């Protein structure tokens, strides 16, 4: 998948059922007050775009990183899904969904995007750390299934061909530390494999 700066990559928080349910009564209390109505979006800006095999850099101010293996829905002509790619949506763990998590999500190289696209509807995301299977997430467990997610986002912003929408962050997405190797697989697509390495001053 090749992107240019006219493309947008949108993440969606709280779109795996177990993740939303884990907040339970909190959804009704401050600061949220009520459960989300529209899809909870965040943007993966261009400095975060990364590729299979490249380093994921652990920032000096973080001990571990959340590895949310997920599906990227590639928008085609006619504003419908043209295909699916493997994504590793990396973030510094954070508990609050109240303010945009720019500092936790927008580090350089935090969105690893697979280069192979399939038109087969994805089934299961598997995330491995150092060869151990840590997380299995089924695309059947989304709050908004992919077609509905794309339609609901399209009510307030027009997705353009080449834009990518991430399906959601699996509940219990694993944490990785310095030196770990992270692998994300979706069905038969070629897996993403990236190492967590130390941040260097110039990057």
């Amino acid at each position, binding site marked *: 998948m090749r992107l240019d700066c006219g493309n947008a990559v949108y993440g969606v928080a709280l779109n795996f059922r177990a993740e939303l349910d884990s907040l339970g009564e909190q959804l009704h209390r401050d600061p949220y007050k009520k459960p989300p109505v529209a899809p909870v979006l965040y943007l993966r800006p*261009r400095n975060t775009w990364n590729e299979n095999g490249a380093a994921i850099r652990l920032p000096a101010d973080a001990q571990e990183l959340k590895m949310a293996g997920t599906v990227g829905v590639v928008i085609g002509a006619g504003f419908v899904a043209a295909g699916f790619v493997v994504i590793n949506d990396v973030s510094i763990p954070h508990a609050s969904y109240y303010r945009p998590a720019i500092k936790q999500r927008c580090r350089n190289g935090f969105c690893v995007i697979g280069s192979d696209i399939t038109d087969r509807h994805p089934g299961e995301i598997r995330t491995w750390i150092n060869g151990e299977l840590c997380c299995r997430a089924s695309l059947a467990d989304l709050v908004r299934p992919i077609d509905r997610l794309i339609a609901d986002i399209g009510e307030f912003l027009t997705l353009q061909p080449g834009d990518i929408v991430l399906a959601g962050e699996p509940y219990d997405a694993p944490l990785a530390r310095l030196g770990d190797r992270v692998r994300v697989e979706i069905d038969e697509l070629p897996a993403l494999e990236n190492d967590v390495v130390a941040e260097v001053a110039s990057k």
Partner: protein
Amino acid sequence: MKRARVAYAGAIHHATEQDGCLRLADGRRLTEDAVVWLPPIQPGTIFALGLNYADHAKELAFKAPDEPLVFLKGPHSVCGHRGQTRRPRGVTYMHYECELAVVIGKTARRVAPANAYDYIAGYTVANDYAIRDYLENYYRPNFRVKSRDFATPLGPWLVDAAGVPDPMNLPLRTLVNGRVTQEGNTRDMIFDIPALIAYLSDFMTLSPGDIILTGTPEGLTGVEVGDEVITEIEGVGSLKNTIIGDPEGSNVG
């Protein structure tokens, strides 16, 4: 130098300002109503600031933040000078926000405040419309409020950094149908431009074409279909936008 991007006679042109007119690169001179104005640059990452003027934070009953409140907007949220922005049917409160927009000119990583101005290509005016009916407390201000199609007018010009010698002391104001409804000065920002560039570049790389919308002072009022809204900043530009409604029979959210 003031630069614009315009559509004219079937093509997209770069233009400069000359004696109050537009001058295309091939020398043709045009009046401002002869062209379709596009955002003066094709934006990279669009950052926006919430609550970055103390008076505005007070107006919204928030205490001033101790860290910049940054949110992002998608690339399709922008439109140009003399553009139109939609107010969906049934909405009760849509308001403008006049903001100084800073355009990054070179790659910036871990920039000290003292050097931050070296990384700026120039400035333009933004109108960061919000529809408060859609405000939710998840990644607030959420995209449905702030990243809607064509709801962030930008322009008219990109004014070179050299043309704005003191960006931290610029009067700004908004006029709705010719009446002044918002007035402020960029000197009242809580986090000034060097602080914002230092803050962002401390944890991520900024690239040429990235834009920072630096927040808005107090004085927000609702806008209605048919209103002409002008956001202007002294020495940077006067950006016009018209509020339109939904076409008859449409059913778009």
